[in-house]
């Protein structure tokens, strides 16, 4: 392969002009080839993906008005406007004739007057029946959700927006009902924003859960999927 130096025997130590010409032709051909750029660059990635507006929307998932009001046919009434006329009994098992749109899915908390004041409909009721104003719903939630309330007061549960530095601006601690519907408080499931589509990402991950390399030997993982989930209602 490497042929330096003296081949005295072959006596062809020099290259004839024909050889030089051959080299010249090879280089010229190479020049033509490279100028033609036979392997043009092709972008190995797609254009900018579409990201829906809501994906970057900082609004809270709910925006209740924190006022004891109801809007019917374009008119806004305070709750008391109706409830003055029709006072409720203290306990009732009969089906509601009004507010049929409310489907109460708040666990064991299935009585209106656990939260709403029976006597003053423009307020909530605390444990002793005293009024909690509509714009302070967290005090109402705290009646049952003490641990969460404690976390919330320290900003550990729930959203905080605005400024972490109080000297520069307000820290906006979002109230419970900006995320939770009081009548169905489980945080609503939502559509996920688009996943990654990075350079040459290739195929997305296959299902890895049953691959031998990471098979979990615990027997619970061998059970059918349904029975792995805890029984609803257990433990609380």
């Amino acid at each position, binding site marked *: 392969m490497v042929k330096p130096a003296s081949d005295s025997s072959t006596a062809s130590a020099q290259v004839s*002009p024909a050889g*030089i*010409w051959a*080299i*010249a032709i090879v*280089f*010229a051909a*190479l*020049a033509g080839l*490279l100028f033609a750029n036979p392997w043009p660059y092709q*972008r*190995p*990635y797609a*254009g*900018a*993906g579409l990201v829906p507006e809501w*994906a*970057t*929307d*900082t609004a809270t998932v709910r925006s209740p008005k924190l006022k004891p009001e109801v809007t019917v046919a374009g008119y806004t009434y305070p709750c008391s406007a109706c409830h003055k006329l029709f006072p409720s009994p203290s306990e009732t098992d009969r089906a509601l004739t009004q507010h049929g749109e409310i489907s109460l899915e708040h*666990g*064991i908390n299935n009585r209106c007057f656990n939260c709403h004041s029976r006597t003053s409909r423009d307020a909530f009721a605390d444990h002793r029946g005293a009024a909690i104003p509509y714009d302070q719903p967290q005090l109402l939630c705290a009646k049952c959700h003490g*641990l*969460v309330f404690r*976390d919330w007061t*320290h900003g*550990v*549960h*729930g*959203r*905080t*927006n*605005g*400024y*972490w*530095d109080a000297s*520069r601006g307000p820290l906006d601690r*979002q109230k419970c009902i900006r995320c939770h519907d009081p009548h169905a408080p*489980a*945080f609503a*499931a*939502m*559509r*996920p924003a688009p*996943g*990654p589509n*990075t*350079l040459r990402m290739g195929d*997305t*991950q296959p299902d*890895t*859960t049953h691959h031998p390399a*990471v098979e979990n030997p*615990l027997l619970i993982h061998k059970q059918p*999927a349904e029975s*792995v*989930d*805890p029984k*609803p*209602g257990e433990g609380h």
Partner: protein
Amino acid sequence: MTDSGEKSRDDHAAPAGVPGPELTRRGFFSKGSAAVAGGAALAAALSPLRDLTGDNVPSVEEFLQKHYKAMTPEEIQVVLKRIERKVEQRYEVDVSVQDVKPLDGVEFVYALNVSRCIGCRKCVHACVEENNHSRAPEIQYIRVLKMEKGSINVETSDHHYDPPLVPEHDSYYMPVQCHQCAKPPCVKVCPVEATWQEPDGVTVIDYDWCIGCRYCEAACPYWARRFNFADPEIPSGELNPDMTYLSNRPRSKGVMEKCTFCLQRTRQGRMPACVEVCPTGSRKFGNVLDPESEVAYILKHKRVFVFKEDVGTFPRFFYYFDERGSRYHEPLDVVDPGDSA
């Protein structure tokens, strides 16, 4: 080297190749044409360079620009103005590029509630928008991992989940981004000191100093660093005009970038974009040196863990739990009210 070697090869071969009297015109001509052809081949090899646009060729000032830490405040101002001009020229948007210094008595800490994250990925896209990431090729600082319940093994996690609704019942979610380590391996390995830890705990990059060796990317145990493999593309209309030198100004091809806890926001007292957008409030941010801060409370009162504690990087990014996990998978309507009443 190849090139010059090539041309001269033929020049010099002339006297050697055909000794003395045999140095004919014809021999010289053949060698000359070989030299010319060689030169043409060299030019052809270099020909792709004609597509280099002005953006990709550093100007004299850019070439001579000093390291961020070596610049005087006046020099920094000059550089900021130049960057503003360049960005405005390219994107045709009015922007402001500032150099916001770290605040005294501040150490930023991030906490993320694993019990509450629902994996909606809004943080990912808010981050992209705030920090002027390249949209093509796509660069994102935050990866949300869908984890199997009963395990905390990232190897079984899914990065590309796309169900109609999240959260899914059999999973929990663990977003990962730069952990702003107190002992950052990325800083240690950088050969040119293009990346360093600021006094407020944020590891930053001087995008104008990085040589693009990607050693930091290999060193990061959290896969938090990103490289600009191509010229970043940002639609002009989506450019965030509030920029700082060390964080969200547009990057160039061939340099590293990473999460800076949105320095342009957080050094002015605001929350990072990912905290601001998180619909569940799983993301918490603040000055841990302030005992009244949310993050200080979390470290004191919650059960926290750091990801990959065994690599000894002392992250400033903590994951925490609630006393009781979420009840997403527990349909509330089956609870029998009679039992507890």
